[in-house]
């Protein structure tokens, strides 16, 4: 931190230093100005001290990865935005056809239904369909006279559709960033990932249609799951469960590498969990109740040759013991 001695600097000197900072940063500095600045620096020890303070702050910025730091500091700020403004922006996004941006923070915040980290929630829709939200999930409901549409913004939803109770027989679809999943039956789940979507079918079937025109569609049947991008659908995997394990509050690990297990766990917890590469391949088997993550970590520490380091509250390090 800053040397205590610099804190008594007169405000007028600090103002001069700030002014010199603004002049020198313009990129159009004349030689005369540079000379004047040097003179100013030499004039009084306080001037030099004030300039050190300026350099302390500019130095802070130089240590940052510019692009990511810029994104972080320009993240939408609820302190500066009124609710009305948030809703106005959201309304615009709605009209332009759910164009999803990477900065979906505002959308998550203003979504119709959402869960916090570590939370799951069950919701009954107007048509009688049931939706269960996994951790950190947000979606909107847009039912019209000819379509029952959910828009998944983030996370994962599990759906049990019910026959349309308005006798309109409207199709039921879930739109994720990469495309549309159309229910051809009753029970399925859709998860929005970083650059793709994941669909699992537990009863009957669904039809997947990636956003890009001309991309081929696919019908996925019960007991199958797959990933898809906006261009194409990945290979089909087999699943053996009746429902996703998380809908029963359980994280299921079937011979999962520790690193992958921790990634899964991280979805239910604030902060950041990292895994030392030396232990990343330890295998985990079991069903872990998601309502107490700290207990899961403690039990891993007891049964595996690892230790959990929590020096920072938002950052858990899993290390070899």
């Amino acid at each position, binding site marked *: *931190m*800053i040397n205590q001695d610099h804190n008594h600097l007169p*405000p007028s000197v*600090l*103002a001069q*230093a*700030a*002014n010199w*900072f*603004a*002049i020198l*940063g*313009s*990129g159009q500095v004349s030689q005369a100005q540079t000379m004047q600045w040097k003179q100013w620096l030499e004039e009084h020890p306080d001037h030099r001290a*004030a300039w050190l*303070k*300026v350099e302390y*702050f*500019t130095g*802070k*910025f130089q*240590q*940052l*990865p*510019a*692009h*990511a*730091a*810029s*994104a*972080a*500091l*320009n*993240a*939408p*700020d*609820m*302190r*500066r935005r009124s609710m009305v403004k948030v809703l106005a922006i959201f309304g615009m996004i709605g009209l332009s056809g759910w164009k999803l941006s*990477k*900065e979906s*923070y505002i959308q998550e915040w203003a979504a119709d239904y959402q*869960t*916090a*980290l*570590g*939370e799951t*929630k069950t919701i009954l829709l107007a048509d009688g369909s049931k939706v269960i939200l996994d951790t950190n999930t947000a979606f909107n409901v847009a039912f019209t006279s000819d379509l029952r549409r959910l828009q998944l913004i983030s996370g994962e939803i599990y759906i049990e559709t019910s026959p349309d109770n308005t006798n309109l027989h409207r199709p039921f679809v879930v739109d994720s960033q990469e495309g549309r999943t159309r229910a051809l039956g009753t029970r399925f789940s859709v998860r929005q990932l*970083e650059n793709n979507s994941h669909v699992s079918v537990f009863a009957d079937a669904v039809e997947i249609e990636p956003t890009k025109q001309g991309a081929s569609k696919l019908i996925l049947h019960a007991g199958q799951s797959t990933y898809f991008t906006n261009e194409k659908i990945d290979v089909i995997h087999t699943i053996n469960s009746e429902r996703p394990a998380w809908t029963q509050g359980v994280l299921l690990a079937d011979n999962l590498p520790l690193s992958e297990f921790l990634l899964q766990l991280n979805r239910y917890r*604030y902060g*950041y969990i*990292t895994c030392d590469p030396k232990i990343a391949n330890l295998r985990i088997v079991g069903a872990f109740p998601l309502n107490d993550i700290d207990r899961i970590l403690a039990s891993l520490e007891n049964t595996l040759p690892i230790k959990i380091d929590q020096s*920072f509250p*938002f*950052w858990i*390090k899993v290390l070899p013991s």
Partner: protein
Amino acid sequence: MTTKIIDDNVITQLYHEHHSWLLGWLNQRVQCRLLAEDHAHDTFIRVITSKDIHDIREPRAYLTTIAKGLLVNHWRRSAIEKAYLDKITQYPEALTPSPEENAIILSTLQEIDGLLNELPSNVRKAFLMSQLDGLTYVEIGKRLGVSDRMVKKYMSRAMLHCLTAEL
């Protein structure tokens, strides 16, 4: 130095009468019991250490005002962390900071954000564009719709704000 004497009874009474209510209030907003408990705890710490503890007339309004401030800060911190981590994962592997570096960078980002938060939006933006994106005053002026002379004023103001901030 004077030692502040706090009437234990005032705190005990405040805690007994309002803690579970506050917890419920927070729980509705954060939808996470652990987090709600943390914030309730922090709220009471703020109350205990505040000097107006004897003058509280509307305890629940007072508690929620403090709790709201804490929540907003919490959301802001999460937003910054999320935006940063989202971006950093797109960096080529060779340029990705280690988790240790990330932790330090995040804490610097929170510090800078706290520092610049009170500045008007344009001043803050101009300062960030110059320091992080390396834009010239002319380019910044174009983006903000102001003259480069104005940008220079913004820069001076932002730096003076940093220099005079309590650290």
